[in-house]
């Protein structure tokens, strides 16, 4: 049924997911195959198989508690840090198995940046917040270079103008929306290949949201972005691909216009038209 042309043809889609055909020529960046996550007895994610295109934005939508965050965390192995979380199935980035023992999560997380659902700046200065990643990975040769990285990252995140004169203030002293942009700057400062954003605009006003969406659009040229959002409009505006999750299962996946204009599953239709959620 699914003829998603950009997909790695070796990965045969399976399960109950409905896949829409894709007409644009994409390259696969991240491919998940039968990923399931259990927290103890509770199954949070069931058998998710999807190929995520490179240099594009993939939006994950679905009602609260359906496993969107869990899915993101499966990609950069953040579920490892939860004691009772058990992950099965495989996640490939550039064809390389992420869950392999030989893969160091440190390297993986440097390649796959993450912006968490709740802004969580370090209780350190704004500068240190952004500089921390580059510092531990040795990305900057000297202080000037580091200053440069901090500045460009903050500029990209649209925060520079607001904080340029108070880089030594604590990051926690910023407003909620500013903190959100600070952690985005922190994530892009390490120059990752994939950026996972868990509701990056949940705490932002329309203007800041527009700025972040602009940023996402810019980042798309060089990065692979996977974002979780509760705003249908935002998903429609920024993403090229959309995945609809429900009760831990991937229900429907395909190009964004397809999902929004022509949902095939009743649950998807109900959700995007606001009949449940």
């Amino acid at each position: 049924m699914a003829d998603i042309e950009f997909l790695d043809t070796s990965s045969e889609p399976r399960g109950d997911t409905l896949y829409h055909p894709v007409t644009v020529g994409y390259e696969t960046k991240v491919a998940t195959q039968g990923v399931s996550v259990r927290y103890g007895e509770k199954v949070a994610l069931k058998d998710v198989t999807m190929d995520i295109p490179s240099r594009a934005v993939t939006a994950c939508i679905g009602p609260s508690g359906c496993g969107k965050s869990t899915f993101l965390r499966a990609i950069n192995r953040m579920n490892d840090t939860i004691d009772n979380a058990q992950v099965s199935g495989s996640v490939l980035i550039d064809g390389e198995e992420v869950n392999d023992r030989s893969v160091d999560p440190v390297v993986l997380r440097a390649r796959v940046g993450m912006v968490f659902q709740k802004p969580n700046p370090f209780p350190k200065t704004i500068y240190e917040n952004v500089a921390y990643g580059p510092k531990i990975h040795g990305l900057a040769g000297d202080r000037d270079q580091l200053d440069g990285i901090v500045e460009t990252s903050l500029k990209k995140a649209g925060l520079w103008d607001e904080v340029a004169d108070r880089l030594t203030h604590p990051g926690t002293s910023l407003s909620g929306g500013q903190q959100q942009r600070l952690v985005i700057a922190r994530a892009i400062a390490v120059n990752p290949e994939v950026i996972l954003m868990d509701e990056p605009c949940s705490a932002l006003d329309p203007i800041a949201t527009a700025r972040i969406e602009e940023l996402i659009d810019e980042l798309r040229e060089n990065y692979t972005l996977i974002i979780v959002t509760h705003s249908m409009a935002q998903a429609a505006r920024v993403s090229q691909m959309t995945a609809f999750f429900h009760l831990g299962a991937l229900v429907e996946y395909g190009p964004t216009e397809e999902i929004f204009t022509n949902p095939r599953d009743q649950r998807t239709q109900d959700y995007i038209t606001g009949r449940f959620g």
Partner: protein
Amino acid sequence: MSKATSIRDAVSARLPRRHRAERRFQAYGLAAIVMAVIFLAFLVGSIIIQSVPAFTAHRLTLPVMLTEDLVDPRGDRSEASLRRGSYNSAMQAALREQFPGIESRTELRELFGLYSAINSARLLSQVVEDPDLVGQTIEFEFPISDDADLYLKGQTVDERREAGRAPITLTVDGETVTLRGDEPVFAVFSDRLRQAMTQRAEADEAEAARLIATLDRIIDRDEREVTDAQIERAQRRAERLRLQLADASGLQLGPRDPSLLVRAGETVIAIRSISSDGQTAQGEILLPAGLGPRRVSDWVLWEIETPAATRLITDRQIVFTRTLRDRGLVRNGFNTLLFVNADSREPELAGVRGAFVGSILTMVVTMLLAVPIGVGAAIYLEEFAPKNPVTAFIEVNINNLAAVPSIVFGLLGLAVYINIFGLPRSTPLVGGMVLAIMTLPTVIISSRAALKAVPPSIREAALGVGASKTQAVFHHVLPLALPGMLTGSIIGLAQALGETAPLLMIGMVAFVADPPFFGLSGFTEPATVMPVQIFIWSTSAERAFEARTAAAILVLLTLMIVFNAVAIYLRRRYERRW
């Protein structure tokens, strides 16, 4: 509309009760705080009041002649020779100089009882340091005995002095002196004493009568014997008093009665009997100053109300002490010895320095062991250890360890450190190690609590940008947990600082007269610590240790306050909010 009104009514109806509950709760809280403050003020206040006498001491300054044949037996000024000199004899000679008429053995013993011979050690070291002093007379200052010191502070002896009312005539006959007043000058005293004796006799008789009345109710044989003895004692006391009162020839004064002294110039006479008319008295010369028959009009009646039998200082010593003070040789001043000396059997020479240094050395060992190990264990258990039955078991045991009575740790230290490892007993090293195990659970538990209080989002943030687990912990979690860890550690150490029982087990009760060396070798030399010192002093018989115990408690409290102040400062300094 009607619904809204009914809600308002419902809420308003309950409002007074809610306000009352609130006010009641606040009142309870306030009362609790007031109580706590009162108790604390009472505790600290009573300790301070008790300790006051310990902070001052009376010192005697005498010109001591360092004659060559006393202090330098070989006469070559060599250290060996100087060390064999008899410095105490030099001090005794200096004291005799003050009271030329004192010759008899008992009198001299009482005189030399005014200071401790240990003081001569300081004289010796002074001379060894500067041999040129031999042959000279130096002003040597030393603390007066604790009994004399307490007497001068008015702590142990009640006395009363009044000017003689009329001239008296003294006639000397061998040892005894007869004093005859122009008027019944002793009548006031003998009347007062008679009255007191009558009261005491009546009280004793009443007591005996009461006990006799209870006798037929007592069946137990042992109890009966005890009561019989009590009755007999009361009766004997009453009998003796009645006999004394019935003596027609006058009033005889014994050691159980107040002492009455007559002082005329430098002469002091102890009255032994007073004629019934109160005009004549017979006495014994305590301090002679060329006494011959004479008539004096300027004299003092000196009543020492505390009977000789119930005090540790004799009449004669009181007279010596007063005389020396009147000559300006005894001065009261700040008791520096309390802070520069180690423990001593002589209260006037005892100080807290030894125990203080011992405490510091012990705390250094405890801190160096308990803090790194405790914090390390906490970090491992909280951040790295897998959650499995083994770690759960360890966790439960650590929590239980915190509730183990501290004396058990002392037994453990004795068995393991001393008997198995053969470490030197009574030393700060072993004491610190024992206290370290005792402190470990506190440090671990509080450090874990501090780590738990760091929000997990901080760890996720660090891991999310690619920090390793160790980096996340050391760069982000630890700095946030540090203030809490510090507070917990310092509370643990403060607890250890006040611990006595486990140290008794490993022999840190050692009597240490030299303060331990404040340095590396001090760790392996016998020492004691502040709380043990307080314990030792509090169980000492000498009255003077009472105030010194309170003073030592104050020093310990000060040390604790310093500890806690440091904890608060560090917490303020490093606390970060998020």
